[in-house]
């Protein structure tokens, strides 16, 4: 959005999208749990062209002391893009965009973690975007969900996210780079798949009420597909742990 579409880019033709997908098709997704040795829990996600690492530390003592909450643990997610993750070099360090994403992801994760079991502690989630290709906050939150489960943190549900949007008047699932840049709307949605409770919902661009309803349904459907992949990744790691020899 925001960028003017060059004349030669055709986003939607013959019920096919620019990368050949159907309107309700996800990009290929690969999830791996427990990839980092020093973190308490970790996950690696490849989602289309996105490559994302998530690492979880804690629950550990929250410092400085004045940020401690005597009733529950605080969840601290930090979303960061590597300098080499985008075409032009990204200036390192937190900027307006990554501070916002860190905040919304922290709040989404807080909804599913049983924070009351660890008063005065903090749970730190680091989300590192190595390669960005539209939908990094969804892929990042999905990776964070797997990493939290891998760290053995008690949760109501494994959070999962997926985006829906609109290009050339058509509601589509999981936007790719061109669709994100030249499309009409992008709407990331995170849910707790057990109850379909919405943990995160943002929207960039314009949708009519009917289109919004349609996009939300589509995004939730996408989330459920990704959720199965998350669970498979976790089971795969721990079944391997049990099978030594």
């Amino acid at each position, binding site marked *: 959005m925001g960028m003017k579409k060059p004349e030669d880019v055709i986003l939607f033709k013959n019920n096919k999208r620019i990368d050949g997908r159907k309107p309700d098709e996800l990009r290929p997704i690969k999830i791996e749990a427990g990839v980092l040795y020093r973190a308490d829990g970790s996950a690696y996600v490849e989602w289309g062209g996105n490559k994302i690492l998530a690492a979880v530390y804690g629950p550990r003592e929250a410092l400085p002391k004045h940020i401690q909450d005597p009733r529950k643990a605080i969840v601290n997610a930090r979303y960061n893009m590597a300098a080499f993750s985008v075409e032009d070099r990204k200036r390192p360090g937190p900027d307006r965009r990554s501070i916002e994403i860190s905040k919304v992801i922290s709040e989404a994760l807080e909804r599913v973690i049983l924070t009351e079991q660890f008063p005065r502690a903090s749970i730190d989630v680091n989300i590192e975007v190595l390669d960005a290709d539209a939908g990094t906050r969804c892929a990042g939150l999905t990776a964070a969900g797997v990493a939290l489960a891998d760290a053995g943190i008690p*949760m109501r549900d494994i959070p999962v996210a997926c985006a829906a949007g609109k290009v050339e008047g058509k509601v589509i699932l999981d936007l790719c780079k061109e669709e994100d840049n030249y499309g009409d709307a992008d709407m990331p949605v995170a849910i707790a798949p057990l109850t379909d409770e919405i943990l995160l919902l943002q929207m960039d661009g314009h949708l009519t009420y009917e289109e919004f309803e349609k996009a939300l349904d589509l995004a939730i459907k996408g989330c459920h597909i990704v959720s199965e992949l998350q669970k498979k990744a976790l089971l795969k790691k721990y079944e391997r742990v049990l099978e030594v020899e």
Partner: protein
Amino acid sequence: MEEQPKIAIPSMVVGDAKRFRPGRGTFEKGGKIYSTRLGLINKQANFINIVPLSGVYDPIPGDTIIGIIEDISPTNWLVNINAPYPAVLHVNEVPWHVELGETSKYLKYADAILAKILLVDETKKIILTMKERGLHKLNGGQIIEIQPIKVPRVIGKKGTMISMIKKYTGCRIIVGQNGRIWIDGNTDGVEKATRAIRKIEAEAHTKGLTIRIEKLLKNRR
């Protein structure tokens, strides 16, 4: 034949609420029992529990732990017990008579102690005691850290695993519930014991572990 335990992940259905009751690491919703964490499903009496496969040490009163002195004040010591929270050891809870302000004469910074958890309140404030038999300051030896959830494996059923390591290496070994293990003995013995414990940590929850560890201990005599 022991059945291979099944793995549970958060939000997975692990049982029916009509037949079982939700135990540790589970919650009940709409007649079904769900897991809240990653672990092995364990059915005990009519309870379903989740035995965690990963996670930090959760202090429980009565646990014997190995702590490291982190800070000293006139009336108490602050002890790192490998949990998300520091623990307090008050001068009234040590076996010596300590005059006010003389705390550092008995336990200094970075000293290791064998202590017991006396109390954990709802905000997870932890109080330790050293006033029971067998609790003392740890002099000499070395401490290794393993994942706290693997401690039961290192001890083994009725202490079989740990007594086997002691027998073959001739070391004195103390296992704290918080994942710290104190080993003292000759250099070869300590090295062998460390290797055995690391192997147990890596291959916990697999079949025939005791036999493999015994082999390893017998081999490099």
